[in-house]
C-alpha cells in the first residue's frame, strides 16, 4: 500500500479514521456476512429480556472495522496477526474512531515485521476495541 519498512519506525502513527454512525442495518449486514446470528444484536425484545436497553453491535463488527483500518494502512496480504479484545459495547448511532501506532520493528528469519497497537474508540471517548497486529514490512 506504499508504506515501506523505512517509513515504519517505532512510534509511527496512522492517520485516525472515523466510521459510522453505525446503524442496526450495519449490525444485521455483519451478522449475515459472518454467520453470527445471536439475536441479541438484532432482536429488540430478546435484548431487553436479557437486561439490555436495546440491541448492540457485534463485537466482531468493530473488530473487523479495526482490521479494515489496519489492512488499508499496511496491506491486506501482509497481515500475520490480528487480535481484538472487547471493552465497551457499541450501540446504534455510535461513531467509531480508529487509531494505530507502530510499537515494535524487527527482523526475524530474514523477514521484516512491525507490531501495531490499535484502538477503536466510541464518540464518548470510551474504548470499544483494544487491538494488536503484526504485519510483514516490505
Amino acid at each position, binding site marked *: 500500500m506504499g508504506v515501506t519498512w523505512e517509513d515504519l519506525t517505532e512510534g509511527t502513527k496512522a492517520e485516525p479514521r472515523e466510521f459510522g454512525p453505525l446503524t442496526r442495518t450495519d449490525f444485521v449486514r*455483519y451478522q449475515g*456476512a459472518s454467520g453470527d446470528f445471536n439475536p441479541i444484536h438484532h432482536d429488540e425484545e430478546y435484548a431487553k429480556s436479557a437486561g*439490555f*436497553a436495546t440491541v448492540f453491535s457485534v463485537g466482531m463488527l468493530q473488530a473487523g472495522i479495526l482490521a479494515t483500518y489496519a489492512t488499508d494502512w499496511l496491506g*491486506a496480504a501482509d497481515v500475520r496477526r490480528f487480535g*481484538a479484545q472487547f471493552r465497551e459495547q457499541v450501540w446504534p448511532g455510535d461513531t467509531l474512531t480508529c487509531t494505530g501506532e507502530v510499537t515494535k520493528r524487527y527482523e526475524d528469519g530474514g523477514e521484516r515485521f512491525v507490531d501495531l497497537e490499535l484502538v477503536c474508540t466510541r464518540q464518548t471517548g470510551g474504548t470499544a476495541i483494544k487491538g494488536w497486529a503484526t504485519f510483514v514490512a516490505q
Partner: protein
Amino acid sequence: MVNKNAVGQTGEPFDLVVERGKIREFARATKSQNPEYLDDPTPVSPPTFLVSSVFWAPPGAARWGDLQLDMRRVLDGGREFVFHGPPPAAGTKLTSQSRVEDIYEKEGKRGGTMTFVVTVQEFRDEAGNLVAEMRSTAIETGKPPTEG
C-alpha cells in the same frame, strides 16, 4: 454453569473453501473499500474473515453444547487470528478443527463471577500445513450486564 470437563475436547473436523464473493461481502460488511479485497480476482481474505467458517461447520464442529453455556449471558471476549503466511486467498481449500483450550473464572466488577472459555480453531491447507489459527474467548457473566 460452564462444564469444565470440556477442556481438551475437539470438534469434528470439516472442510471449507475460501470464496471471492464471500470475501467481497465480508469486506463490505466491515466497511472496507480496499481494492485488494474488492478488485483482485483472487483476493486474500480479511483478517477476521475466518469467523465465517461457521457456515461450513457441521453441528459437531464446536462443543458449545457440552460447555453448557447460557447464551443469554455470554459475551464475546475477544479473538486473535494468526496467519503463517498471507491470509488464505479465494479458491483455497481448508480443513478446520476446533478444540477447547482453557476454562477459567474471574471475579467481575458488576456481573458477578465471570467464566472465560478459550477455544482454538486451526485451518490447514490440502498439504496439511497450518495456514491460520483463530483463538476465541467467550465470557459467561454472572448476570446480564447493563449499559455502562
